[in-house]
């Protein structure tokens, strides 16, 4: 049952990512060069809507929350490595799968590169990475814990902040400044 709903969730995500252009590495590169902010604004909108929805829904429904641990060195270092790959390739682990579905040839190369990246990580994990990864582990911490505020309130504040930011930021900064 979970498998079926995950398939449907993936299907919907794939359609939305394709339609917004997130599976285009050229558009990702333009977003990272800050020439066009449509994908960044798409993500911020998704997070703003999502965070308000899940914490509202949690008042009535049991939710499958799964907070990932904030081991600062590994998470930040991994993010920095990820960012370089994102900038060079223009794909993320999900959008290259969507791109492959669209028939993009370079998406297949990104996917194969990812499989090799996973292999390298697996081989290096025990000896090299596991000891360093967990340095500065803050545990499964949320912004609500840090601020000592109710999660629903923080979700509304964060959502409002993201909505304000996407409404205020131009989608094509260069067009406006011209």
């Amino acid at each position, binding site marked *: 049952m*979970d498998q079926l709903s*995950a*398939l*449907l*969730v*993936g299907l*919907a*995500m794939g359609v939305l*990512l394709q339609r917004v*252009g997130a599976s*285009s590495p*050229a*558009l990702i*590169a333009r977003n*990272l*060069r800050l020439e066009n902010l449509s*994908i960044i604004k*798409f*993500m911020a*909108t998704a997070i703003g*809507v999502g965070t308000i929805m*899940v914490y509202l*829904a949690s008042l009535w429904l049991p939710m*499958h*929350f799964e907070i*990932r641990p*904030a081991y600062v060195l590994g*998470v*930040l270092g*991994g*993010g920095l490595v*990820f960012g370089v*790959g994102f*900038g*060079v*390739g*223009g*794909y993320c*682990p*999900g959008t290259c*799968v*969507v*791109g492959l*579905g*669209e028939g*993009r*040839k*370079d*998406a297949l190369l990104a996917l194969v*590169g990812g*499989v090799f*990246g996973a292999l390298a990580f*697996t081989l290096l*994990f025990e000896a090299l*990475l596991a000891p360093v990864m967990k340095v500065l582990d*803050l545990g499964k*911490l949320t*912004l609500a814990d840090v601020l000592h505020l109710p999660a629903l309130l*923080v979700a509304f504040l964060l959502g409002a902040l993201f909505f304000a930011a996407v409404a205020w930021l131009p989608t*094509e900064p260069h067009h406006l400044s011209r």
Partner: protein
Amino acid sequence: MQGGSNTNAISEPLVTAHVVRTQGLPRWALLGALFGLVSATSIALWGPIGVSGTYPRFIGALLRQLAPGYAEANPYLVKMGGLAKPETFLVLGLLIGGFAASRFSARRAPRVELIHSSETSTAARYRDAFLGGFLIIFGARLAGGCTSGHIISGITQLSVSGFIFAAGVFASGILTARVLQKGGR
């Protein structure tokens, strides 16, 4: 509201989409709100979305066939488990979704598009895509999640790790994309 969409249409057909406003709502806002709804629904149904973990699970499934002794002894492969997880089906859904959306789209995605000014041939695009793919999965596994698991699901759940990961990604991503653009001029 800008009339600048035509200038992009020649080289990057998909890019025009974001400039077009439909019924007052920009396309990214409408699709973003729908994406937020889907990610919230996922947390209600089975759990937060996440993609990058499927890559090492695929490696695990391969090695369990090719080198069962090694696969059973590797703590990371044991920790990640097998492919019979909802996440695997999510990735399958992404593939079908991408295929279906482009099938029913008036504009077909280009087979290959160059993305930086320093990328001057198809071979260079393939090289960059492979290298980028390697680094995003290596980085994501180091961090314990990627764009979906840490940034979308993570920040949606107000997770501190999601904010830290996003800060790292955008800091080095913006720098890398700018350097690669300058490099070709």
